[in-house]
């Protein structure tokens, strides 16, 4: 195309004719463009096709070659009405046109810039676009628009852009119709195309959506199409209240925030070609942040620039400050996990000194960030990434009250706390609501807490001791006041006995904390009675939340519901108030071990001391004492019998703790071996195993005696409605109860029946009480039961050939090896029907030599043989007949 233009010129113009030498000519070569000259000559002709005078620079004249014939510049032509360099426009009077750029009737026209006639007249030096002067490096543009090219006040061009324009941007500019200099520098025509502009000011791309700027400055853009949080966002609406008039005055883009909202391209004195001074620009839109100028965050008067930069920021929120390693370390130390926290910490880290002063930090214990809120909050607080951050409470630009010396809080301190900690706001109504009237307002969190620089857990303002060693730390917090020297000295630990344990694993998820602490049971912020999280009133719900298997409901120890317990009005009221566990226990200031709430009773074992608090004469359960004769406990129980207990899985009791002895601990038999005072298998008797039926509790240890079940000595077999002397029914109180009771027994053998004095031997009397006239075993009366003993000393020592089981007893019923008497129990074991069968008959049956509760099936090696020799068998077999009972001794 360019060559064709040159050809045209070679045809049209006479080489060597410069514009200055031009004269009107009627040569065809001239008239081809100067139709007006032709018209002047023919004006009187009646056959004129047109009377319209076309100068050489008339647009249509130009178009007549540029409509696709010599060149296709239709778009240029169309641009005259749209985004081309203006023509037909009057030049302002104060605008001084440079020499050699003519106007037509005072207006710009094509010929102002273009002419086919060059100054030099040399075809080779012609600008292909017929420019009046070569527009190399926008030299022609700058003839008129000199001010738009001045260094420092305009977008950099030419040498200011040398080596700065990336190749890909240069290619993009050219693709859009812009031009780059030979040295790959920006020039006027890089952005402006005088005839092929696609936007106002003949720009090759519009700027109303920052399209043109983004071509080269894409790294400085943050838009939907090119998101980059390191740059100020564009395509955004102006915020409410923004001082748009300032932008309008500067003819900046105000339909939305764009590059050319803040920046100008030409004739701007401000640095970075900003439409306002850098210090004042931001706050034109960010009016709410204007107050920062009066705060200490306006460091060295740097305004917003102190922390922010509009482009290529170092962090989120257009952060301008570099973030030192120390700040990252500090963030890790205090577990600052809020999305934007590191920005704040980029200044507020330990050891950071500005102007000789160390910048304030948040200490090592500070309010957590990075947490999600569980519930929606009423107050609109920012949650970067939907999580708490420093900026949730703090607005780094100003305090809520615009106090320049404020703490940059978004709302009054208490309001802020209560916004999230709504439940804790109840503290106003509770005893912790007024810690110190003089210093704190009612309900002020700061009375106990420091949001930053806390001294202990739970952001405590005070701790027990200089640094709290307590675990969990909340206890140190509580004890700081609940101490003899503390504010709450009227509510302190005074007992020598241990209080409710803390620091142990919290067994429930219904109460807070992994470990039990004061705050597990207590909510220091509530107004509820004794600050408990769960009420104890009545059934001690709080206690049984953890102590689930110690629920007293339905047991005889549920004193409020046990009709047998006669409580005074005061006792009842207190029990209702503090819960039924409080009858025995208190978590604080106990009177004895196991958090005992009562004056301990007299006794040898810890169980006795505890139980006798009530189960003693004159006490609450005086009707339920253990009596004179009771099951042996403590040291009365032999080692052998202790092993029986261990085998029974009933616990031995650690006398130091009062609790069942753990593995490796020393324990003894105590009340709690058989009883579980809180419930147990038998909720009425509070026994660990049942006694009803087969007396599982007794036979757990007394396994041999347990074989009585199903024998004739099981009263359920022979007399179902049997009651012992204490009125206990065998069907309800177990098989053992027919003869024995553990407490309040008739004698040491825990006998439950009044024993008849039939003989002078107690052991025999036990048997004969039943097996005598009027006794329950009257069908099996033993008339001949007596073995003489007055003139012989029976010995039960081992000897060669001794075999069998032949115990002898004193008159008092004590088993001995020498001097004892042969009584019923020497031959009979009343609990074992037959040693040689495993199954009891389960019904009344007639016995024989292999059962009948006999201890031995023959006399071999027996004490009988010791005296009677071969005669022994005869006498043994007929022992209960008159055949062997004579006054004359029959032994040898």
């Amino acid at each position, binding site marked *: 195309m360019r060559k064709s233009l040159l050809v045209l010129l070679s045809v049209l113009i006479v080489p060597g004719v410069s514009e200055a030498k031009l004269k009107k000519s009627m040569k065809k070569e001239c008239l081809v463009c100067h139709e007006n000259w032709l*018209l002047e000559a023919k004006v009187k002709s009646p056959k004129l*096709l047109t009377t319209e005078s076309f100068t050489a620079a008339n647009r249509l004249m130009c178009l007549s070659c540029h*409509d*696709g014939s010599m060149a296709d510049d239709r778009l240029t032509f169309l641009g005259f009405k749209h985004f081309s360099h203006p023509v037909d426009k009057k030049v302002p009077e104060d605008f001084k046109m440079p020499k050699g750029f003519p106007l037509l009737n005072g207006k710009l026209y094509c010929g102002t810039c273009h002419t086919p006639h060059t100054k030099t007249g040399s075809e080779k030096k012609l600008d292909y676009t017929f420019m009046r002067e070569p527009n190399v490096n926008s030299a022609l543009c700058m003839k008129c628009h000199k001010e738009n090219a001045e260094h420092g006040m305009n977008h950099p061009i030419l040498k200011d852009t040398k080596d700065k324009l990336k190749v890909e941007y240069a290619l993009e500019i050219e693709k859009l119709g812009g031009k780059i200099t030979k040295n790959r520098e920006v020039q006027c025509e890089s952005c402006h195309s005088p005839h092929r502009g696609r936007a106002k000011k003949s720009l090759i791309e519009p700027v109303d959506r920052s399209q043109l700027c983004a071509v080269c400055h894409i790294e400085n853009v943050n838009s939907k199409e090119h998101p980059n949080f390191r740059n100020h966002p564009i395509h955004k609406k102006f915020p409410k209240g923004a001082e748009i008039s300032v932008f309008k005055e500067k003819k900046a883009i105000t339909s939305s925030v764009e590059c050319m909202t803040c920046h100008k391209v030409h004739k701007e004195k401000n640095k970075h070609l900003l439409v306002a001074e850098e210090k004042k620009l931001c706050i034109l839109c960010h009016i709410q942040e204007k107050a920062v100028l009066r705060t200490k965050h306006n460091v060295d008067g740097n305004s917003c620039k102190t922390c922010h930069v509009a482009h290529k920021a170092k962090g989120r929120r257009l952060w301008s400050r570099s973030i030192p390693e120390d700040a990252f370390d500090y963030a890790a130390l205090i577990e600052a996990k809020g999305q934007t926290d590191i920005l704040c910490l980029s200044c507020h880290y330990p050891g950071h000194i500005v102007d000789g002063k160390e910048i304030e930090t948040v200490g090592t214990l500070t309010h957590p960030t990075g947490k999600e809120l569980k519930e929606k909050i009423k107050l609109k607080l920012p949650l970067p990434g939907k999580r708490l951050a420093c900026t949730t409470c703090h607005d780094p630009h100003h305090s809520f009250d615009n106090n320049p010396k404020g703490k940059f809080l978004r709302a009054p301190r208490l309001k802020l706390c209560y916004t999230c900690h709504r439940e804790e706001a109840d503290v106003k109504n509770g005893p912790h609501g007024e810690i110190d009237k003089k210093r704190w307002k009612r309900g002020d969190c700061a009375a106990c807490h420091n949001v930053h620089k806390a001294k202990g857990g739970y952001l405590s303002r005070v701790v027990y001791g200089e640094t709290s060693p307590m675990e969990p730390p909340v206890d140190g917090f509580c004890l700081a006041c609940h101490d003899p020297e503390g504010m709450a000295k009227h509510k302190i630990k005074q007992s020598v006995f241990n209080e409710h344990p803390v620091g142990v694993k919290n067994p429930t998820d219904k109460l807070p904390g992994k470990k039990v602490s004061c705050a597990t049971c207590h909510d220091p912020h509530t107004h509820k009675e004794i600050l408990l999280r769960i009420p104890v009133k009545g059934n001690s719900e709080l206690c049984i939340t953890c102590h689930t298997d110690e629920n007293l409901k339905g047991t005889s120890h549920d004193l409020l519901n046990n009709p047998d317990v006669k409580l005074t009005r005061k006792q009842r009221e207190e029990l209702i108030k503090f819960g039924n566990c409080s009858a025995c226990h208190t978590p604080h200031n106990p009177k004895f071990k196991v958090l005992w709430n009562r004056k301990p009773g007299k006794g040898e074992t810890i169980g006795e001391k505890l139980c006798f608090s009530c189960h003693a004469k004159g006490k609450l359960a005086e009707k339920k004492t253990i009596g004179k004769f009771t099951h042996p406990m403590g040291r009365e129980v032999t080692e052998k019998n202790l092993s029986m207990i261990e085998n029974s899985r009933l616990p031995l009791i650690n006398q130091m703790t009062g609790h069942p002895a753990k593995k490796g601990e020393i324990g003894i038999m105590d009340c709690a071996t058989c009883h579980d005072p809180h419930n147990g298998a038998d909720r009425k008797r509070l026994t660990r195993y049942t006694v009803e039926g087969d007396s599982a509790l007794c036979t757990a240890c007394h396994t041999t005696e347990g074989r009585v079940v199903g024998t004739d000595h099981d009263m359920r077999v022979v007399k179902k409605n049997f009651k012992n002397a204490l009125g206990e029914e065998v069907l309800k109180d177990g098989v053992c109860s027919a003869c024995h009771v553990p407490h309040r027994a008739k004698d040491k053998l825990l006998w439950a029946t009044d024993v008849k004095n039939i003989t002078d031997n107690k052991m025999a009397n036990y048997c004969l009480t039943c097996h005598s006239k009027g006794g329950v075993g009257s069908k099996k009366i033993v008339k001949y039961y007596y073995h003489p003993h007055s003139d012989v000393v029976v010995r039960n020592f081992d000897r060669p050939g001794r075999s069998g089981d032949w115990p002898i007893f004193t008159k008092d019923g004590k088993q001995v090896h020498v001097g004892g008497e042969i009584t019923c129990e020497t031959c009979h074991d009343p609990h074992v029907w037959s040693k040689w069968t495993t199954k009891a008959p389960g019904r009344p049956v007639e016995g024989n030599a292999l059962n009948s509760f006999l201890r031995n099936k023959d006399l071999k090696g027996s004490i009988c043989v010791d005296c009677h020799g071969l005669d022994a068998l005869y006498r043994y077999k007929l022992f209960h007949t008159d055949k062997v009972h004579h006054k004359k001794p029959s032994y040898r």
Partner: protein
Amino acid sequence: MRKFAIAIIFLIATSLGALSGEIKGNWKFPSDIAVSNGKLYVVDGLNNRIAVYDLYGQHLTDIKLDSPFGIAAKDGLLYVTSQKGKLYVLDETGDIEKTFSLKGRPIDVAKLKDRLFITDGKTESLDIYDLNGKIIKSVGGKGSAPGNFVGIFMADSSKKLVFVVDSVNARIQEFDKDGNYVNSFGVFGIEEGDLFRPKSVAYCGNGTVAVSDAITGAVQLFDIYGGFEKVLAKGLYYPTAVACYKGEVFVLEPLKNRVLTFKIQGVK
């Protein structure tokens, strides 16, 4: 006042010659038109389309093409050039049957017998191709001598001749089917029978050729020997492409986005 208004209307009517009708469209500096089988094709190249109308001005459809510029309608086919160096052969529904690559900067196309005559702005020549797109010869070149061109532009054909606009030389040149120069006509000037900046030529049958002139705003009729017949219309605003169809001349005013129609014999 009324008399003045009537006088104005009369003047406009006479200046426009035998104005019979107009077809308007929303185009962007269209470059050429063609009329065939009752359809008007307007080459709206800057919108990458050929807009198709019936002769009542009803828009029928658009044929999408990349930057079309010149058009010729012959034998039920459309021949379309693109200054990007392409020639498209389409049926009248717009389906492309063939696409050729052409040399230079093709402007317009005329078909004579089995040959396609392409005006080439780059070399100011008339390039002759066969129907398969193979170039046969190229005639002309830059210059003002007979057979040469300065500002070669639109072309049309009769049964024997190809008429080519030589715009800056202000003449119409005629070639035979082999590309041999036959004749040229046109006197430089602005009076009736003169040409100042001819833009398009159309053979209207019966030895009559219509020529538009963008600067004088006239459409004039000549015989094929160059004899001036009459001014068909004048006072037009930058008329460019012309096309003849059944005794009517269609004239494109690209800057007014309209096509005017004129009856050759008397007023329609």
